[in-house]
């Protein structure tokens, strides 16, 4: 039944993998957000595909199956992997006990062989079976075989007893038939005159009374004879079927040596030349098949409707449904892919599995067994297959050893796995030295690690493993996996670059989206943590800078803002209101700085009045600037008269004493003819006076 299920899934996968290329255009055009975005670098579970993830897909090229977002190598399931790794780690079975076991098996095979000069020695061989089963490698299978042989003998004894009983019954039957014939003869012969007065009816009744018991006894004897014949046949047949079942089981267990021993026993025990294999039919007949349940069917209908159209759009639809009424499940998919310019649309794929249930699967299993029974219908075929399997396994081991010598680990490991899967219990497999197996184990572990790394998109580890495998295994093609890894890395880097750009432009939505995309493609990308950390640190620093700016601006500490201008320029980039405030502050401080610079220069030239005036102008704009205050105080003492004239003029101007104010301005101008403040004051007041 398992085999049938596997076949069904394989057929399903193959059918889809064959159909997939038909939709290559559809898929590529529709998967703009996944495959196109990653350059195909994402593993299959990241690319839903045009049928979604609900339908299993098998890629025969890579032996990889995908379903529901998961991928796995069909050769690499946990059970097989565990058994294979256990085998690879196990020591070679070349101990004394193992050698003795092999010798015993060989001896049994020799004793039963038709080539034995003494002819098949069944009893001798049978006696060796219990001793063979004492070894661990045998797993007590020889005892089971011994019991089966013994059962055959018991059945044969039973047949002998039945034959003896039948012989006695035949004698009894002859006697009864004689008596019966005598009872039917006329009475005259035996002096019926003893009862001369009896009527004819009475005579008839008396005769029937004598005959009737004889008839009944004769009938019983005949029935018993017939039953015994049937019992004899059935006993032999049952013994044959039991024996064959055991052999089929051995074959299924891949115990090919036991199959050979069994078939040789069988031929000797049942020397009637009847080698028909009845066990498979018998097993099939014993399955509880419900004929009303019907059969499971795979339904696939492809009726494409293709159309070209203009425009620029993209859409897709797919679905899987379950029809409870019809007890069937089905999947339907429609794809509509349109690219800009020359558009393309296609739909019309219908796929499903109908009537899938336990009963239908049991029926399918029974049918499969019957079909298998028709293909393998004699023990000779079973024997030949076992021999062929042994030869194939031995050859596989030799091939493995040769490939190992050539350092072609990939092929060697594959050959060993195949050989192990077929002939796990054969001596050539069990005797393979552990040192030789370890190399395959190492390769297997690394390939499994590689699969795991690719499944979780750990590209760094995957790349390491690929390079390591390529170095150690000459036949391991690194180009394809490396291309996948490199492409994925590039795409991840592109997403990170976009994330940086989004962070700079303040597009938080794009930032999150790009970071998520980069993380999906390469979750353990070292640059991811670095970039995201930098972005978030930048965000923190930015926020801190903004807070500082707001505080300093409120305090009118423009000088401090000016000192940290680079930090605030970067921080306020995204905030136009703050940016405008900063711009004004910087402009003002820039003017103040210019005033200070000019003042310094004038002071150097021995023009303290000009220096003071320069500082004073800056001071009027930024009275809180400490630098300007300091310079203003310094130059005030150095140009005291001029400063007094200007300040008096300004004070009187404020008091609307135009004449006095103007006089002081004129005096200041007399003291420092280049004074702009005085000039402006004179001009301003003159205009008022002449107005």
């Amino acid at each position, binding site marked *: 039944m398992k085999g049938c299920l596997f076949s069904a899934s394989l057929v399903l996968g193959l059918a889809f993998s064959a159909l997939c290329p038909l939709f290559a255009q559809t898929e590529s055009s529709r998967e703009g957000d996944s495959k196109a975005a990653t350059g195909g670098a994402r593993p299959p579970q990241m690319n839903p595909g045009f049928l979604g993830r609900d339908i299993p897909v098998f890629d025969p090229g890579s032996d990889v199956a995908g379903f529901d977002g998961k991928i796995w190598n069909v050769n690499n399931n946990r059970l097989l992997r565990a058994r294979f790794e256990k085998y690879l780690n196990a020591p070679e079975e070349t101990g004394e006990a193992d050698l003795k076991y092999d010798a015993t098996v060989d001896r049994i095979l020799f004793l039963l062989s038709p080539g034995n000069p003494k002819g098949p020695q069944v009893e001798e061989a049978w006696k060796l079976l219990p001793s063979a089963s004492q070894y661990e490698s045998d797993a007590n299978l020889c005892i089971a075989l011994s019991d089966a042989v013994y059962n055959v003998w018991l059945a044969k004894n039973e047949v002998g007893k039945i034959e003896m009983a039948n012989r006695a019954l035949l004698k009894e039957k002859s006697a009864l038939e004689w008596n019966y014939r005598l009872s039917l003869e006329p009475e005259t012969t035996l002096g019926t005159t003893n009862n001369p007065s009896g009527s004819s009816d009475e005579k008839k009744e008396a005769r029937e009374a004598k005959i009737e018991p004889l008839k009944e006894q004769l009938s019983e004897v005949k029935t018993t004879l017939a039953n015994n014949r049937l019992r004899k046949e059935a006993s032999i047949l049952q013994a044959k079927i039991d024996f064959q079942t055991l052999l089929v089981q051995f074959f299924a267990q891949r115990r090919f040596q036991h199959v050979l021993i069994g078939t040789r026993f069988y031929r000797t025990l049942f020397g009637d030349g009847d080698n028909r294999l009845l066990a498979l039919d018998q097993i099939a007949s014993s399955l509880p098949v419900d004929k009303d349940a019907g059969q499971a069917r795979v339904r696939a209908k492809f009726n494409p409707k293709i159309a070209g159209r203009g425009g620029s759009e993209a859409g897709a639809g797919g679905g899987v449904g379950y029809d409870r009424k019809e007890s069937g499940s089905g999947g339907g998919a429609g794809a509509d892919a349109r690219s800009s310019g020359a558009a393309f649309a296609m739909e019309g794929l219908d796929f499903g599995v109908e009537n899938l249930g336990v009963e239908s699967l049991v029926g399918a299993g029974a049918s499969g067994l019957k079909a298998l029974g028709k293909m393998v219908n004699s023990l000779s075929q079973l024997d030949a297959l076992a021999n062929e399997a042994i030869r194939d396994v031995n050859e596989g081991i030799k091939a493995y050893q040769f490939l190992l010598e050539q350092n072609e680990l990939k092929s060697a490991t594959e050959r060993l796995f195949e050989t192990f899967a077929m002939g796990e219990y054969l001596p050539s497999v069990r005797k393979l030295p552990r040192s030789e197996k370890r190399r395959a184990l190492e390769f297997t572990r690394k390939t499994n690690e590689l699969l795991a790394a690719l499944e979780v998109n750990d590209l760094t580890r995957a790349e390491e493993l690929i390079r390591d495998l390529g170095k150690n295994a000459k036949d391991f093609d690194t180009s394809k996996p490396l291309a996948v890894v490199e492409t994925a890395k590039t795409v991840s880097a592109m997403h990170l670059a976009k994330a940086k750009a989004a962070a700079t432009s303040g597009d938080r939505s794009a930032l999150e989206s790009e970071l998520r995309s980069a993380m999906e493609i390469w979750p353990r990308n070292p640059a991811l943590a670095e970039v995201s950390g930098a972005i978030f640190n930048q965000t923190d620093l930015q926020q801190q800078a903004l807070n500082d700016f707001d505080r300093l601006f409120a305090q009118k500490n423009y000088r401090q803002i000016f000192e940290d201008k680079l930090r605030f320029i970067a921080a306020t980039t995204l905030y136009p209101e703050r940016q405008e405030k900063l711009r004004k502050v910087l402009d003002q401080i820039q003017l103040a700085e210019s005033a200070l610079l000019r003042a310094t220069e004038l002071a150097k030239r021995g023009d303290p009045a000009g220096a003071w005036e320069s500082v004073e102008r800056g001071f009027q704009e930024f009275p809180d600037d400490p630098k300007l205050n300091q310079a203003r105080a310094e130059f005030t003492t150095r140009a005291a008269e001029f400063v007094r004239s200007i300040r008096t003029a300004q004070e009187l101007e404020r008091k609307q004493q135009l004449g*006095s104010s103007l*006089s002081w301005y004129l005096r200041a101008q007399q003291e420092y003819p280049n004074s702009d403040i005085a000039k402006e004051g004179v001009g301003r007041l003159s205009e008022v006076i002449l107005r």
Partner: protein
Amino acid sequence: MSRRAHQQISVTKLALLLAGVGFLGVGGFWLYRLMGGQYRTVETLDPESYYENANNLKGNTYRVEGWIGNSLGWNPGKGRLFSIVTQSQNKDYVLPIFVPHDLQTINIQKKQKYMVKVMVNDQGILSVLEMTKP
């Protein structure tokens, strides 16, 4: 006899008389200048007071003598504004004077010396009432 007496006024005496008259004239002129010339009856403006608080001098008339400095402005309908440099206690003081439109006929040029009669107007400005070259 009286006729002889009349003829006795000598040339020397006449020359001395004329010299005396001339001396008196020069002295008078000097004295005139010294006393303020034409506006000698008008009080001389104290620049320090003006500098200190011109509003306190509003309505007063003063005499100012000095050299014209710069032209500070001109309103054709109202007049002209000049600066004048005057001296007081050996210190130069620059003062603004307003020459009303009525005195537009006077050509005022820089560095000319003028004797000005001014009045402190309601704006505290020295408004020229009369002005003449000394």
